[in-house]
């Protein structure tokens, strides 16, 4: 991945506060200062290995999906969570709020307007959190490769742990993606959250490059 050049900024500001469009606590009236989190995301350090293995095992068996149908991929999530494919057998279910969810399924193409909501939702999810990108549109633009309003690669904006290609991918293919995710989690390789923390500036710069009316805190925790 190519790194975006870092802009020069006054040393007094945190380096990831990119421009004046960003909302910061200090800019708000005092009674509203606890609205936003001013901190940047932090790496989550590993526990003691045995404990970590146990935690990973537990995480892998309790994946709660954020019920946010971002694109046409959402249509195959419904059979997946209902009787026919019934992924509750795998300890997975849909949750209506990011606070309760640990898996974000990006369903295909992402328009600019949705990208903003995706970033907010992703940042509001509590760690450990994982992203599964389904459909070819999330990989390289898919059939909207020349559309002015959809981004072409979701991994430039949020870290993606697992990809599933297809248009639409069948529920079984999505399921295979979840199985791979579980495997990665058990092996301790699903480190998207830490990647986001490490390369936060890069992700932010990419996000701000396409979201022209950035009017929220840089990190919506």
């Amino acid at each position: 991945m190519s790194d975006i050049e870092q802009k020069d900024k006054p040393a007094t500001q945190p380096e990831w506060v990119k421009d004046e469009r960003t909302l910061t606590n200090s800019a708000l009236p005092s009674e509203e200062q606890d609205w936003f989190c001013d901190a940047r995301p932090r790496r989550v350090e590993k526990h003691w290995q045995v404990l970590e293995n146990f935690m990973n095992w537990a995480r892998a068996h309790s994946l709660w999906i954020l019920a946010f149908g971002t694109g046409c991929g959402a249509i195959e999530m419904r059979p997946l969570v209902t009787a026919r494919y019934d992924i509750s057998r795998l300890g997975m279910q849909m949750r209506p709020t990011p606070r309760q969810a640990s898996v974000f399924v990006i369903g295909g193409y992402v328009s600019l307007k949705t990208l903003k909501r995706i970033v907010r939702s992703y940042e509001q999810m509590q760690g450990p959190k994982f992203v599964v990108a389904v459909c070819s549109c999330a990989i390289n633009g898919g059939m909207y490769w020349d559309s002015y309003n959809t981004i072409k690669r979701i991994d430039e904006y949020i870290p993606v742990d697992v990809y599933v290609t297809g248009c639409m991918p069948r529920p079984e293919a999505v399921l295979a993606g979840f199985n791979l995710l579980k495997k990665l989690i058990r092996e301790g390789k699903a480190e998207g959250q830490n990647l986001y923390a490490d390369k936060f500036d890069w992700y932010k710069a990419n996000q701000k490059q396409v979201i022209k009316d950035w009017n929220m805190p840089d990190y919506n925790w």
Partner: protein
Amino acid sequence: MMRLQDILSPFYVWKRAFEKPFSIAVLSAPRPGSPTYRGFHQNDIDKCIGCGTCAEICQNVSIDMVPVKEAQDGDSGLRPRIDYGRCCWCALCVDICPTGSLTMSNAYTWVEEGLDRDVRETYCYTPGADPQPWDDEALGYRKPEGYELLHLERVPMPHLAPGERLNSFVEMVKGYSHELAVQEADRCIQCGICTATCPAHMNIPAYIKAIREDKIAEGLKILYETNPLPGVCGRICTRRCEDVCALSHRGEAISIRWLKRYLTDCASAEDYKALLESEIKPLDRKIAIIGAGPGGLSAAYYLAGMGYAVEIFEQNAAAGGMLRYGIPEYRLPYTKLDQDVAQIAALGVKFNYNACIGRDLSFDDLYNRFDAVFVSVGMFEPYRIGIPGDDNAKVISGLQLLSDVTNGVPVDLGRRVVVVGGGNVAMDAARTAKRLGCEVTVLYRRREVDMPADVEEIEEAREESVNFIFQAIPLEIKTADDGSLSFDWGKAEMVQQKPGERPQPILIEGSRENIAADTIIAAIGQGVNYLWMDGEASAKIELKKFRVQADRWGRTADTKIFIGGDMFNPTADAITAIADGHRSARAIDKMLNPPREN
């Protein structure tokens, strides 16, 4: 108004508790896709010709053509590489594939871990070349039977009926009308595979496009870029381009030759004139060209276009060479040839007729007077049959007959004519004899499939009720008492002498049959007349197996002498001669390297 029933009714759902659940056991073994599922692509890499039609129709630009094999005639060596970050599984690529090599398996699962890598690279592969688990999957989407995005059948060319054409030398192929030509041009998929195979590398897709868009003047200009005798080639070209046409794999090739003919036929005099309008800066260099056949005319056109002063020396009374004296008028009307020649003459090329080098003029003289000499004298020396009695006056060569008819010399063939040979000259001679009112029998040493003549020519000869005797080896020609000829021949069998080579006809011992004839026409090939190599100038030129040695640019051992045409190239057809002329013209230009402005 609430009723008790409304409160109890939902409990109906409890009965479902005793029913079989909907859930399927997908968790252990995923269900396979249906037998016609549109999954990941498969490609039969040997069947694929790399025409790129799949990439052309893909609206997602998900198909790239990448080199996998060596390019060769009819195969670009490219193979489609598919990006599954773009593909939408619409299967238009499968539907349109001209060879039918591209299909889809019913495999649908492909997951990748995504962190810190560019998945766009992993989600790309060349089906058939990069091994994938589903390569041998028998199920999956295939183009449904009878469903066709391409037009596999050629628009039929109107011909004169056999009965009609036997009476005259009027051109038998009528030519496409505007509608038919556009319809035929519309079939073209513009892949460009044919361009490499055409000896002259004519830009075939471009001029077919011009026909489709009804831009005749533009099309004519494209033709003249690589071929100064388009009117001729549009009629008698051996059209190797059509052999490799992408559509010929499952259907009939585009009638490239007839489309070219359509262009020249419907181009107006203004269109032709417009081609001459670009200004040519005359150069102070003179080129002599020996032989006004296709090779010589082509070289003359391009050299004159570059500004050279070009003079052509032709032994006959008119230009065209084999085109005029070897091809009967019902295939190539002289007016068409004259038109193409006139276009070349209009560039300022000087024609010297009845000027045979070695007889009327000396080669040394030309060599000294001109800056370069291009020799394309063609092959006008017919071979003899080489059996006892072939020196009889009633045994004539096919070429003799054809040129006599061209020159208007009265010929008397009698009633029964036997033609020996299986090439195009044999067919032309046979059909010319037929038009002169004879009964014609063609004798050929090998089988019909081995005949070097065009399939269409054989077919048309049959329609004109020419008889064929195959696997017949000539033995002897005797004169009967009534003055007619008696031709003895023996039956041959085809023997595979070496594996991989074509079978040879071997005379069956003791077989001897007889056919009566008034005239026997030998059309078993021609050789080169080396009369022109008389003086000192040509001393440097090497001959090997009766062939002048030169490189592919026609450069001989003497830097000033270039050769081309039938006497040089092994295929001995008009389009190759034209290509030779064009190539040599550029080689001559390079050799002389005259000063040019800017």
